């Protein structure tokens, strides 16, 4: 018997209403991603990549269909429970890093543990330092984000995403703001995390990322085309 997939989308559609009328970002998307996969979602701008990631993170809700992550019906979670679930079940890496500017690198990493009470208070700092060490930016721990390079900021952001040991790491264009060399190192880092058992779903424009992927999903006009 095959183990059940970590992520399962079934007939998911997402539409937005705006001044220009109703816009369908995703249309009848069904897919599964197994545990330990490095799933790379590619497609052109407006193809629905980020919307898909938003649905997996519980940031958005589908207009139709079901979204299951680690056995949790994300589309049915009430808003109050959503934050707590998101904090523990998924780690999010943003294109613009989104580190809180008034917190140091290590404090940024400790923040999700603080919100979710996932670790005893005394263990949070050592754990955050260990994550920064793992990502090669431990020497930047007490610096504010504004003093770090783009690559360093993204490594801190990845460490933050891993803080609560999430089942899945969701990365939305994580290299969109980085040069090609740094981008490459980030892809390698994700691949290494996958080797260690982490499931990663990454949205990207960069075709080069495909060589690290164990599963690729191509979207066009809101539909899975490959």
């Amino acid at each position, binding site marked *: 018997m095959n183990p059940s997939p970590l992520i399962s989308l079934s007939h998911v559609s997402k539409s937005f209403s705006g001044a220009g009328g109703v816009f369908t970002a995703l249309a009848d998307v069904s897919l599964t991603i197994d545990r330990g996969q490095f799933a790379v979602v590619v497609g052109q701008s407006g193809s629905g990549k980020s919307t898909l990631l938003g649905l997996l993170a519980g940031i958005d809700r589908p207009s139709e269909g079901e979204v299951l992550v680690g056995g949790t019906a994300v589309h049915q979670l009430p808003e109050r429970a959503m*934050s707590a679930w998101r904090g523990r079940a998924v780690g999010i890496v943003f294109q613009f890093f*989104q580190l809180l500017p008034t917190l140091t690198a290590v404090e940024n990493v400790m923040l999700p543990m*603080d919100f979710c009470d996932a670790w005893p208070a005394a263990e949070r700092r050592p754990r955050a330092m260990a994550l920064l060490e793992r990502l090669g930016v431990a020497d930047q721990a007490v610096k504010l984000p504004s003093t770090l390079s783009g690559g360093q900021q993204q490594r801190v952001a990845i460490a933050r995403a891993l803080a609560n040991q999430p089942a899945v790491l969701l990365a939305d264009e994580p290299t969109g703001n980085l040069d090609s060399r740094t981008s490459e190192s980030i892809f390698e880092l994700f691949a290494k995390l996958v080797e260690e058992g982490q499931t990663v779903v990454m949205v990207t424009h960069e075709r080069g990322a495909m060589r690290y992927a164990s599963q690729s999903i191509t979207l066009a006009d809101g539909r899975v085309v490959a």
Partner: protein
Amino acid sequence: MDGSLLRPRWRKVLRDLWLHKARTFLVVLAIAIGIAGAGSVLDTWALLRRVTRDEFSGTNPASATIRTDAIDSALLAAVRAHPAVGEVAARRTVVGAVQARGSWRTAMLFATNDLSAVTIGKVQTEAGTWPPADGAIAIEKSSVDFAGVALGQSVTLQIGEAEPRALEVVGIARDAGLAPGWMEHIVYAFVTPATLAMLGAPSDLNQLQFTVRDRSLEWEAVRRIAYEVKALVERTGRRVADVDVPEPGAHIHAGQINSLLLAKGAFGLLALLLSGFLVVNLISAMLTGQVREIGVMKALGARSGQLAAMYLALALLLGFVACLVALPVAALVGRAYAGFIAEILNFDTTGFSIPTWAFALQVAVGLLLPVAAASIPVIRGCRIPVSEALRDFGIAGQDHESDTGWLSRLGGVTRPLLLSLRNAFRKRQRMALTLITLAMGGAVYLGSLNLRTSIQRSVSYLFGDILRYDISIRLTRPMAPDSIERAIQGVAGVGAVEGWSSTRTAVSHADSTLGNAFPLVGQPAGSKLVAFPLVEGRWLTEGSRRDIVVSDRMLKEEPQLRLGSAVTLIVSGRPTIWTIVGVARTGVQPGAYTTRAALAEALGNGSVALVTVRAADRDPSSHGALSRRIRGELEAKGVEIASSQLMEESRSVLEDHLLTVAQTLTVMSQLMILVGGLGLASTMSLAVLERTREIGVMRAIGARHGAIHTMVQAEGLVIALASWLVALPLSVPMSVLVGKAFGRVMLPVPTHIVPGGGGVLQWLLVVVGVSVVASAWPAIRATRVPVARALSYE
């Protein structure tokens, strides 16, 4: 700020505050001003309440005073034996004249057998020796300036027809139970009965004072005891002239103090409310700038409740810091203001502290105000869906809340000015709160100017239209009115003269008890020297017999009295029946008026002791000389004058004190305008911050520093001018409110509600000045942002 003991989220709160120092400073300042404004009034009130209650009760005030004949130790013992009576004392009060600053003033001398052992109405020694020895005098503190004497000097006193005698002022004492001498125009002093005898006054004691054992009794119950004591006194064969029962435990000015401070407290609360508006604006802007961070934190697992707690804790912290600043300021101002009012009311705040509950209340309000003000924007901000928060374009992207298309249709407006106008209306809620804050300050400012005008007009009305005489002369010996009027009429410069008679009387009730004593004044039927405004009924006419006009205050003290009703007054110990034909507004003291002829008939004596004189020359500077000529003429004719008073002096004393009260209102309005100015400064700072990118674009396409500067200043000016305009109609109800409150506290003033041209112009200058200052720093900052940074600003 290491903060290693703090969780990261609290470190973020602290560092956000530190990062936005200017904004933090503005919020703290706004809350501090509000708390300091309201807190100073609260501190004043709490301190005065404590001082008046403790100091007044410390004097052991009489529960009742009975005027009767020679009081001896046997009578005192008999009264003391009454089961409801606590302490008993006897004294004599003699009215005479004291020569001070070259003119004679009314003196009230208190004498008792042993001044060193006064048990009721205790006095405190302020300077010199106490008690005064025989042949010496101690002046009551509140009369010292009015008397124009100092410790160690001599004053000349005259009682009745006796020879004037010089007495040395050996002490200054304070009787907190007396209304201030300067206010009453009376020199209060303390002497021994032997000194009274030396002055030619009767020295036997005629005022029986006592306290009730149970100090918690209501006025009615005390009054019943007083009438039992009165009956006891009458059973000894003595005649009782009147019985006076004051409101138990209440100082004579307690009502005025409360009304005054309540009115001020209302404005203090308004200032607090307005500072709350400013906090709403600033916290809203702070949250708007943090929408994306809120989204990120939610994406990291933060719940709305956790985020709300963070931002509300931030507001609480701001309130705490504001309290640290505001409480000492409020205490300092409150103590100074309480000292000022206490001085006016003859109290001393030295040795008294502001009660702890007043501080506790200020801390509670100081902490809760920012939390309450922040709660709506915080809850709204923290409820934003994560997706929306993460899509946030930054604060500049949210201008859709206001439709300003109508501004484009305005003709004859240049493009930069149109931009400023449009900018001013972009954030309607923020603009409205800023505008209301400034406009409220302006309305109170205009209200205070109107009150000032009302006071000046009222005093002019009182001393011109109501009291139409310029000099009042009190005679040592009452004289026939015709002869004294003839004598004064012959003096060059005299326009009109009227002799007025008076007696003390009291209302006789159906249950044979007497009301509190009040003066009944007899005037010529068609008096040309006084014209009190009638509330109802008519004034006295030539044929009036046993008609009286009572003061409206009288109806409050004797609520059973009505226009047209018959009232029994005790005149010279005999009951006499009068008809109330009119009710007039005559001031804060109860009193009644009848014709001189009617009072002469009731008294069996038509002589007058008070003469009022109207000068032919209306220039007040000539009235002093006229007064001296009249004194010379009367002395030449052998008429002895007890005291004389120039109404111009009374007028200026009254006006000065009333204007002092109005001045505090002006200060309150300035405080509110300051809060409004801070609001405008913060609004303009936020506007510049939000439009950094826009400003960068304008500069990139050629806008010079001057143009950017002018645009920001013009935007501030648009809000300021709008608030100027809004304040004008708002000042009308404000003036009514202020006028009515003032009337209840001090003197009923005809409310001046429409702001005068001068006031409107003054307010315009103030608001333009505030706008220029408030917009100056934001305008400078707008011109200093480098184009590259402005365009990259997120």
